């Protein structure tokens, strides 16, 4: 199981890019943290999620 924003999901073995493709996130408005580190967008396609990983997707909204 991989925790995504606190919720356990059965996505171990997928890359971050593969997982994100199944969601509605706007890629330009998000940043992704994996086990405490921010993952550059350029490496989403190479980063494979493992059992026990914890991933957090921060999705920004406009205004300031």
């Amino acid at each position, binding site marked *: 199981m991989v925790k995504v924003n606190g919720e356990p999901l059965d996505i171990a073995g997928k890359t971050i890019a593969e997982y994100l493709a199944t969601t509605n996130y706007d890629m330009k408005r998000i*940043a992704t943290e994996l086990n405490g*580190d*921010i993952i550059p967008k350029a490496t989403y396609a190479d980063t494979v999620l493992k059992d026990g990983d914890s991933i957090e997707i*921060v*999705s920004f*909204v*406009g205004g*300031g």
Partner: protein
Amino acid sequence: MIPTKEEWNNALEERHGKELHRAFSSATVAVCGLGGLGSNIAIALARAGVGRLILIDFDRVDITNLHRQQYKATQIGMYKTVALAENLKEIAPYISLEIHTERITEDNVLTLLKDADIICEAFDDAECKAMLMEIVLTEMRDKYLVAASGMAGLYDANRIKTRKVTSRFYLCGDEESDVADGIGLVSSRVMICAAHEAHTVLRILASNFEELRGKDNE
């Protein structure tokens, strides 16, 4: 009559204590974007005695900004960097200011922010927010980033929170209310979010100082 620099520092030391005043006054904080968030963050930090601010914005003061941003009707048309520097110097005459009147991009961000201890993200645009977050947290790993997402509208003020996402990244806001929906930004709610950001900066500076003091006592 403007007080002397000595009188100024003495007043802040009396308020915050010598060591906390030193932690604030020796800090450099960058404010990226000088709109409703950035102008309010800068004023709060200047009042608290933060020693040096790096202020970055490409835009000019517009009449449509005055309902929430800390500028004056007489400043319409001025660059926000110049107008805010003027206002900050009236509030805190001895603060050190570095202003950059340009757009922050992937190409200049490392140079613009290299001297900052803590970086405040105060952009309007969600894509710019995400860009700054990724670059600062992957390429400037010695810095702290305090960012904001979700402060539009007249929704409950108490939904705006500060969340520690990683050891060096804090996110303020309700993470939902987008400026594109509803009535846009309202001064009081933007100020709350700006105050969360400024307060987080001061807490980071204070905790670093406490860590140092802890080490001194060992």
